[in-house]
């Protein structure tokens, strides 16, 4: 009786192991595919592995990087990320929400019943204008 139970459990475990091995192989395949994609996009490269090159990714972003903006980002974060004065976007976009700058772009669009795509494009163009103006000065 005990031996029968044990052999049943053994066969269940064997199936689970086979399933997990297949799952592991599939996950490894996707890992390699993602890695190759990142290499092709030149996000991972021998140069990027050098510490000095990596720290280039930590400085304030420039006008060409405004596309990294996402609806979940707060105005406070965007100000810091692009090194723009705290009240610049508030004045330029005439934001009257008292929560500014502790307010996400999505939250702002939602409170004001605005289209998020429109808000994003306004914030992007204002940021781009500021960064272009300051870089030429």
């Amino acid at each position, binding site marked *: 009786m005990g031996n029968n*139970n044990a052999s049943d459990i053994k066969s269940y475990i064997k199936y689970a192991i086979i399933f*997990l091995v297949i799952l592991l192989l599939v996950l490894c395949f996707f890992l390699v595919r993602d890695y190759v994609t990142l290499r092709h996009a030149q996000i991972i490269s021998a140069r990027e592995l050098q510490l000095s090159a990596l720290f280039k*990714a930590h400085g304030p972003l420039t006008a060409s990087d405004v596309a*990294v903006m*996402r609806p979940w980002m707060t105005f406070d974060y965007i100000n810091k990320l692009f090194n723009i004065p705290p009240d610049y976007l508030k004045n330029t976009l005439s934001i009257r929400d008292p929560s500014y700058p502790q307010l*996400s772009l999505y939250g702002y669009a939602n409170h004001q019943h605005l289209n998020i795509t429109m808000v994003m494009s306004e914030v992007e163009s204002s940021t781009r204008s500021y960064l272009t103006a300051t870089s030429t000065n």
Partner: protein
Amino acid sequence: MDSLLTPILSYVLLYKYVAIFFVVYTGAVIIPWPANAMLLAVGAFASQGFIGFWTSLAVAVAANCLGDLTDYGIARKFGERFIHRFKIDRVRFFISLKEELITDAGVTVFITRFAGSLSSIANFLAGFVEVPFMTFLWFDLLGNVIEPFGALTLGYAVGNYWSDFSNLLSLIAGIFAAAILLFVLARIYRRITRKYSE
């Protein structure tokens, strides 16, 4: 990007350490949030000077340990009644798993810290089989320091490119979880084979 991750990131930017604590704690207890992807982003925010790296690490470790201890405590307090009520103690797989956990409690607790959402199940099991509290605490703490440190450091290193690595990190976490489960099952299989061949 993960649809669960984007609202979490807004809250992290708004409430910083409180949000990190909440997400990591509830994630450790049971809710399958993308906590590692969030920590990757937090590492990137730290590299941009928006949040403190070491404070985030301390908050994540504390929240993870408290979450794990909550699971362990609940299972330890109510586990016996639950096991008897549903006759789980008659299931041979549970008995084998219990033997496995008791024999190598430290190693099992430690390696399951890297198994993502499976670690919550391991916490409950550790409470059910009454793994000694101090053994659970030390190995849990050790694993919980290494795991968020890895995610935060990777996020810090890749900085503004962090979102490109989010998928890669999820895949690595998935591979770890599957490999750990495989390891535990293989040991149970070997144990049963050895026991019935004697």
